[in-house]
């Protein structure tokens, strides 16, 4: 049962409450059998697996859209940076050791209202979502189910790995610069970053507030649409969530793509991309053409600036957001110190890992007196240019298709000592966050060594339906999403 998708399970569970217990048991068994190798979940053992949510979900207050129990009995795995009432949520950081949130994130509340079972075991991630490989976790790295010596991508590497290895039915991740899409690509699953403002960030432990979005990591596109139906929508607790109606995304799935205009940005196929990845992506584009879409080369001329702009804006916002970890209200406090300032400095010095310190210090630097204009303000201006590149293309095209990552999964340890090299692995995913647009990664083939390659589709703000339409059309005519790692 653990091998099924959510939409397949829904049929099984419909009138059979026992079935959802069996699913949780099947997942528990799978975790016990293989998670010692994958380490997709943290704070195991699986014997302690429990869930919150009710097999018979309570009726929702009148007028609320998620009234329908569309995910009744479906277990969902949650990244360690999304607050789950009573279940540890530590962002895989020592500084949040033992933290049990006193409330549910809005997405968790919505999942429960839709009847989903929220698992107590949380998925592994780079500390505070700082990374592209899940190696920066306080709990140690997750292993890619397709090759245990490789990283699963990151920062939502745990979520992608447990979905790929059938240790989960579906999962939630978060994406600030590619943290859902790049691991989805590395693990051969479907990962969606929604439009900024589409999904409430309330209860997501903030990394970079102008870029962060929560999104689903699933075995196929239909599940992604199902989860989006539940988690999307305005939330008074997140002033950046947008008050527009959530469509029924599953309705977009069955539309064909005849006549759809797809832009292929030339800047994504130049230096840095591995030839094998390029080849697989070219094949995928041919497939989309074969399905009736019209493709044409386009230009996003400021693409080369996306990574430097991102590492200024994201670290600046992170340095401010992570100021809250002061060893007073929650989290780790150093054992000895001389005064209040010393308590802050020692607790943060001991509690944060290397990458977190690097980013907080970089972010503090670019915001500091004398450097603000040269770095932060300049980055905000170039961000405008990156956004305008997309506005122009979407004036003429329905979507843009690119590789999700310039390479397949790399080896554990390969880039961890060279932060800059690691940052560059996000080169194709970062722009979507800077421009606030939605983007999805779907499996589209394998390298000769058997590592998955992901195809990224991007569309204009709030056009997730276009993404689902293209992704599902491709999926219906290929078998890549059905491939499973041998583990």
């Amino acid at each position, binding site marked *: 049962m653990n091998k099924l998708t959510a939409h397949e399970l829904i049929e099984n569970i419909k009138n059979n409450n026992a079935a959802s217990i069996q699913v949780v048991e099947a997942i528990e068994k799978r975790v016990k059998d293989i998670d010692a190798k994958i380490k997709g979940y943290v704070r195991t053992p699986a014997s302690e697996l429990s869930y919150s949510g009710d097999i018979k979900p309570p009726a929702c207050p009148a007028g609320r859209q998620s009234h329908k129990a569309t995910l009744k009995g479906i277990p969902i795995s949650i990244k360690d940076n999304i607050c789950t009432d009573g279940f540890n949520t530590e962002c895989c950081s020592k500084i949040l050791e*033992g933290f049990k949130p006193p409330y549910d994130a809005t997405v968790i509340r919505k999942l429960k209202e839709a009847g989903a079972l929220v698992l107590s075991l949380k998925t592994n991630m780079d500390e505070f979502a700082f990374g592209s490989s899940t190696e920066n976790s306080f709990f140690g790295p997750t292993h890619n189910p397709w090759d245990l010596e490789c990283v699963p991508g990151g920062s939502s590497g745990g979520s992608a790995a447990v979905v790929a290895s059938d240790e989960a039915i579906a999962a939630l991740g978060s994406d600030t610069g590619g943290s859902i899409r790049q691991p989805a690509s590395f693990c051969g699953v479907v990962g969606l970053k929604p439009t900024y403002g589409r999904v409430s960030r309330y209860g997501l432990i903030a990394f970079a507030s102008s870029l962060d979005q929560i999104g689903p990591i699933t075995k196929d596109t239909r599940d992604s649409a199902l989860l989006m139906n539940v988690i999307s929508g305005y939330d008074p607790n997140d002033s950046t969530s947008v008050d527009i109606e959530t469509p029924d995304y599953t309705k977009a799935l069955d539309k064909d793509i005849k006549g759809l205009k797809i832009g292929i940005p030339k800047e994504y196929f130049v230096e840095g991309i591995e030839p094998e990845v390029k080849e697989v992506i070219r094949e995928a584009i041919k497939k989309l053409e074969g399905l009736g879409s019209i493709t044409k080369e386009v230009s996003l001329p400021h693409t080369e600036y996306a990574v430097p702009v991102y590492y200024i804006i994201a670290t600046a916002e992170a340095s401010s957001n992570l100021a809250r970890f002061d*060893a007073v209200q929650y989290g780790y406090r150093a054992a000895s110190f001389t005064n209040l300032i010393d308590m802050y400095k020692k607790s943060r010095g001991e509690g944060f890992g290397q990458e977190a310190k690097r980013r907080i*210090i*970089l972010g503090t630097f670019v915001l500091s007196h004398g450097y603000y204009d040269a770095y932060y303000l300049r980055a905000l201006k*170039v*961000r405008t240019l990156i956004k305008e590149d997309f506005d122009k293309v979407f004036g003429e095209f329905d979507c843009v298709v690119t590789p999700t990552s310039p390479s397949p999964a790399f080896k554990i340890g390969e880039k961890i000592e060279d*932060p*800059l090299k690691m940052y560059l692995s996000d080169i194709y995913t970062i722009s979507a966050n800077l421009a606030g647009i939605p983007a999805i990664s779907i499996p589209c083939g394998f390298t000769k060594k058997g590592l998955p390659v992901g195809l990224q589709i991007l569309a204009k703000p709030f056009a997730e339906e276009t993404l689902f339409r293209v992704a599902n059309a491709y999926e219906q005519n290929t078998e890549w999403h059905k491939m499973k790692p041998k583990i």
Partner: protein
Amino acid sequence: MAIDKKTVEYVAHLARIELQTQELEKLSRQLEDILSFIDKLKKQDITNIAPTSHILPIHNVLREDIPRESLSVEKALKNAPKRQGNFFTVPKIIE
């Protein structure tokens, strides 16, 4: 842009992070690499370009000042590293 150890130490202090000597060495080197990479932004002409700090138009969200249910004191204090009664405990800050 060069960033020396002294600057890193100062910025770490602003960020309230204590660094060990070895960490300081390594971080200074890495930050220098990252900053020189970031410097490629200087190539881009930004005259008359407005900054984008948020992708959506952001405005203040106000609500009526009506009391409503919030976290209980017990729940709010549950994760405190140190507490006394209904308070968070911190080192003495007034002489």
